[in-house]
């Protein structure tokens, strides 16, 4: 039977608590659901720490636990809650090594979802952290990527922001880049948009012979792209697009800028629209759909 991302996160958390003297800290962890089934059924005596419902202080408690060397996994159930949870992570944990020579390693599990959950809880909000120094941001959507993220965290003394998405929890497949020597168009998707990008690229190739490359962005900060992927982008006939599950005025535009500077290839960005999300479907604000990505590519090629 295939292993899901959900199973991997659960197993990593179990090992972190039982074998590495680590902590998992957050709100309503042991409630029904165990954070989308990503937590083992362990309790405080095993390091599963239920915090009070005070988000700002909770971030600080986790930073303190990190200073004590417990490498906490700090679990934020909705990425939008980072507006409250981030201050001490960004301003203390991320700066502590640089200013005082005291590492403060912590693993921030920040979970996105969307659809009918309103103006704060929906979507990814990794841009809140992105602009600040001292943070590493990864967005693993596959089982292997999550192992890579965790192992890297355990081998360093840095602060990791793990931009998760509930839509990826059932995933069992690895997502490989789709590269061409001379692509018609290139998609550079982040988070949950990676699945849509993959599907659209396959459909356009199969249906119309359009060569859409997909360069998956797993490492947001520091941003990394392979030489092979960069060469593919350089040869794109009609440019490309960075796709994000966050507002575009953040990570997507920043990465697009860096890549344009490196390649002189014109890049668009697609992400959340610049408006608040409502709870009802017709006023919601969702990541770019397959149709939207599909239409953008055709429009670019035709123009």
């Amino acid at each position, binding site marked *: 039977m295939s292993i899901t991302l959900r199973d991997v996160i659960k197993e990593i958390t179990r090992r972190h608590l039982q074998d590495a003297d680590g902590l998992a800290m957050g709100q309503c962890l042991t409630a029904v659901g165990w954070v989308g089934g990503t937590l083992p059924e362990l309790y405080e005596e095993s390091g599963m720490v239920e915090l009070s419902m005070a988000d700002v202080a909770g971030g600080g408690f986790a930073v303190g636990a990190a200073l004590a060397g417990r490498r906490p996994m700090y679990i934020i159930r909705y990425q939008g809650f980072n507006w409250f949870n981030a201050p001490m992570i960004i301003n*203390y944990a991320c700066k502590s090594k640089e200013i*005082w020579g005291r590492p403060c390693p912590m693993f921030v599990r920040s979970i996105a979802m969307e659809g009918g959950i309103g103006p704060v809880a929906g979507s990814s909000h990794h841009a809140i952290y992105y602009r600040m120094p001292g943070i590493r941001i990864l967005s693993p959507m596959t089982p292997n990527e999550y192992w890579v993220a965790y192992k890297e965290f355990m081998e360093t003394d840095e602060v990791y922001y793990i931009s998760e998405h509930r839509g990826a929890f059932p995933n069992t497949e690895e997502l490989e880049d789709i590269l061409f020597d001379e692509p018609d168009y290139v998609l550079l998707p982040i988070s949950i948009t990676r699945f849509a990008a993959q599907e659209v690229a396959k459909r356009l190739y199969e249906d119309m012979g359009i060569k859409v490359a997909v360069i998956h962005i797993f490492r947001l900060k520091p941003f990394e792209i392979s030489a092979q992927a960069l060469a593919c982008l350089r040869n794109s006939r009609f440019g490309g697009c960075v796709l994000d599950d966050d507002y575009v005025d953040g990570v997507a535009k920043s990465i697009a800028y860096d890549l344009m500077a490196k390649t002189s290839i014109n890049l668009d960005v697609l992400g959340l629209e610049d408006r608040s999300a409502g709870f009802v479907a017709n006023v919601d604000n969702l990541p770019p759909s397959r149709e939207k990505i599909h239409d953008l590519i055709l429009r670019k090629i035709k123009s």
Partner: protein
Amino acid sequence: MLITEDIKKRIFEKAALCRAFEQEVFNQVRLEKIKLPVYLSAGQEYISATLAVAIEVLGIKERQIFIQHRGHSTYLNFGGNLDELILELLGSKMGCANGMGGSASIHSLRENIFGHDGLMGSQGPIATGMCYANKVPTLCFTGDAAAEEDYFLTSIGWASTKNLPIWYIVEDNNLSILTEKKVRRNWEMSDVAIGFGVKAFNISDDPIEILASLPDTISGPLLLNINTNRLFWHAGAGIDSDKTFDRHADFASNFSSDYAGNVNNAAKDLVEMAWQRCQ
């Protein structure tokens, strides 16, 4: 804890060093030798001096100290290196915070003193979280304004819930820059702590009163709201009022004028020599 003559002297000697240090920093700022914002703790030094001596007397070897932005005295009283503090104020990489901490974000790896990041009151949750994670006796210093931060209050509540070995020390100088406490709130930190189920006292910075409020061990949460006086400006070298009560002058009356004078002069000499070494 009862105060003895020896304890009184130890507190006075520590406080004298802090006062001499802050006075010298005051002078150096006036001379523009120090060019960064400084937060002088003159007038408030008896709080950390008394607690540092108490921790020594109680034989608590392992402890962690979380400092606030007005923390020169806390740093010095708990064993922070004098030269490294001077170098820090001069912006040297040899400073206690590698020349990045200035006056407000000082720390000491050796003495387990944790620096402050500049977000008012963030030391509350961070100290509480660290104390939860390692159960090491913890002292968390704050001002009366930073203690108003909602997350600071929550920290006291969580320390109560988990019965953590942490003492919250509120250096209550009644001022947020120059805004008095009565303008900002109609409640006292000690009452809030008691409401959370934490033992708390609202006392003066008289060492006798502070020591009388302390248990024999750091085994659970405690909050001391200690009323004190800031002699100098919120930031920089200036004096708000020449009528401010001065605990150091008051406490000196416990001793012969010869002894008090000698201690003050020795502290002044020590600080002057350190400045000469560092400049």
